[in-house]
């Protein structure tokens, strides 16, 4: 098989049954509706309601509070939630990558204590990767954990950490040994309770006016021995496998579906050939991306390495997201205004302001293309 081929995904009958259940649940949800205005609603009430239905951590084993489903079923639920811009941001990171990370590399105590709370929609995570001087060059992180009696002492700073101010834990990547010739060596991951003394959080407002991301400082933070996740010095390998989860899901190509829906609603009032052509093209892209994402889920289920596939998908998916406002605005011109009463104008404003972040967060497209180039035998 060709390196760039994505295996045929399987259709999950259980997943399709879940799809109708999720739609019914969403149609009957009377709590906050974040809708098109919010890029990513943070709503613990909604997260807990999902947890009660068993729709968080669906792939986790049952004994850790999971549903014992496969990744295919998880994708169905996730894409249905993303399609209606359901406020899933509170638990999304924990369920997407922190839970799977702990299940794979965590200690039994970490798994027992935390994973069931993630599955219940009550425990939220942030990811401490980027630093003020370390963004795309992740191996250059300088936050340092020094071995002390009974644990570790951490000093340093993380930045662009989404939701750090309102999550319970951080998975922190830091140096536990000086950088050697192999720059990726000597990195380790820690489980950090955000209430630990010495951890401070300062929110950073983005260009859309949201305060989603943060700067997090660590000043002589003491972490006990059992805060270490996995193996000391294996942080890089662990992060890489975690990033495959981060890069391969529908959240990498469905962020701007709200604007597309508003566009389609408006288009039905004033149909045009150009409008129809635009919708058809977007749907062709969306349907191809969905297939590729489901295909990666099948690869992960079969325990195949999908790092290259995930990089390809995230590049394609985020370029697609980013292109959406640029495409729509020329077909159905409007002056974008945040919070406008006209849903299309408001949604367009929202996606224009958020679009720059698509190809940056979770690995810039340049970094992803570097991964692809390397795998092709260039470099």
């Amino acid at each position, binding site marked *: 098989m*060709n390196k*760039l*081929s*994505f295996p*045929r995904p399987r*259709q999950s*009958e259980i997943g*399709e*049954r879940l*799809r*109708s*259940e999720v*739609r019914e649940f969403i149609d009957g949800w009377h709590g906050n509706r974040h809708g098109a205005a919010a890029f990513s609603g943070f709503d613990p009430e909604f997260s807990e309601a999902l947890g009660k239905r068993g729709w968080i951590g669906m792939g986790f084993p049952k004994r850790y509070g999971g549903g014992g489903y496969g990744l295919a079923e998880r994708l169905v639920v996730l*894409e249905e939630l993303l*399609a*209606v811009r359901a406020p899933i941001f509170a638990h999304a990171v924990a369920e997407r990558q922190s839970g799977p990370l702990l299940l794979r590399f965590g200690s039994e105590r970490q798994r027992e204590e935390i994973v069931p709370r993630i599955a219940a929609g009550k425990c939220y995570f942030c990811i401490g990767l980027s630093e003020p001087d370390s963004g795309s060059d992740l191996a250059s992180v300088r936050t340092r954990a020094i071995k002390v009696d009974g644990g570790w002492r951490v000093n340093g700073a993380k930045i662009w950490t989404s939701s750090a101010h309102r999550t319970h834990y951080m998975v922190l990547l830091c140096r536990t040994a000086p950088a050697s010739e192999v720059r990726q060596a000597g990195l380790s991951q820690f489980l950090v309770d955000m209430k630990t003394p010495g951890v401070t959080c300062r929110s950073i407002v983005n260009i859309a006016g949201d305060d989603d991301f943060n700067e997090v400082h660590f000043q002589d933070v003491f972490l006990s021995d059992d805060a270490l996740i996995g193996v000391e010095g294996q942080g890089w390998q662990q992060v890489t496998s975690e990033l495959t989860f981060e890069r391969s899901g529908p959240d990498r190509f469905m962020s701007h*579906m709200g604007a*597309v*829906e508003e566009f*389609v609603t408006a*288009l*039905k009032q004033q*149909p045009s*050939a150009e*409008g*129809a*052509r*635009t*919708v*058809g*093209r977007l*749907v*062709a*892209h*969306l*349907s*191809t*991306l*969905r*297939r*590729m994402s489901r*295909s990666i889920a099948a690869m992960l289920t079969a325990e195949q390495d999908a790092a290259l*596939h995930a990089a*390809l998908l995230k*590049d*394609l998916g985020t370029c697609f997201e980013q292109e959406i406002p640029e495409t729509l605005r020329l077909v159905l011109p409007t002056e974008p205004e945040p919070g406008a009463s006209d849903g299309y104008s408001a949604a367009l404003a929202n996606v224009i302001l958020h679009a720059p972040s698509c190809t940056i967060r979770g690995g810039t497209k*340049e970094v*992803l*293309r*570097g991964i*692809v*180039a390397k795998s*092709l*035998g*260039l*470099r």
Partner: protein
Amino acid sequence: MSEETRDMLHEAALRIFADKPKNLWAVLQESGFDKTLLPESKGGAGVSWADASRLLILAGEHAADALLADAMVGHWLVDHAGVDGATLPTVASSAHSEQIRLGRTRDGWRVDGKLPRVPWGGACTHVAFVVGSGTAAQLIVLSRDAAGISVTSGRNLAGEPRDTLVLENVVPAAVVAAPLDARELLSLSAILRSALMAGAIERSLALAVEYANLRVQFGRPIGKFQAVQQNIAFLATQAAAARAAAEAGSEAIDEWLDGVGEPLSRNIAAASAKIRTGEAAGQACAIAHQVFGAIGFTEEHELHRFTKRLWSWRDECGNEAFWSRELGERILAGDPGQSLWRAVVPMAKAISGAAAGAAR
């Protein structure tokens, strides 16, 4: 068909293409690749359309100078019409019903009109096409040597024959109820073109990677320069998307013919295949040529064998704009209150209605 047989078929095709025989078409015919969709009882291999598409991806990768896709569909249709002796059948998938007049005289059927740009229309032994829509669709097979057929030869950018046949009072070899209507045939042909395109895009990528690692400028292979790497990596994303779209389209054909999927005319994967591969083709050609610089712009170099086919195939059987508009209009014509998402991702049939209630 077992997975093993399928792999053997794939390997056999790969060997033939890699050998680059001078008489490629004769070798492919001898091995029965043109009849591969027919059941074994009729000299075929009984492969699925998805498997046939995988062979076409290979053909595209090797710029196979042959009418494999059109002959495969041609054999399938000619067999359906019960016509014997077609050694080189082709298909006129872009036949416009309004350009064809099918009449019935006392002596039987007569056909008049025009079949535009038929692949190997001059050289074929038979041409199959469908007129009409829905259950009224009729499959017509003409013998190429029937009286009243005149040929205006034409070629696509790659030099592949695309001949226009003018029909005057032609007696068809067969007229039968069609297994698919004219639009569905166009869709099916578009999907097979997508498979060929996915293969040609992958070869453009492979050639670009190979050259970037060999060609030294400013003291190092150009593949060491990030600007070049980024372009080639982008080309790889397009190759991956094209293959995924083409495979999804071909699977939609199988599901439809097996009676488990939606009609091809309503299937999103079917419409998406040509849209996505067509777009990828344009991007791929531009990047591949940029990587090769002037040498890739010469007739001597082989790159154009792939890029000219891509530039041709993307406009055959409907281009991106054609299929995008068709798909978009279909979606917009749905229930006005329904979201785009729920139009694109309908609930699976098996669990709709009463079954869903019972499952809860």
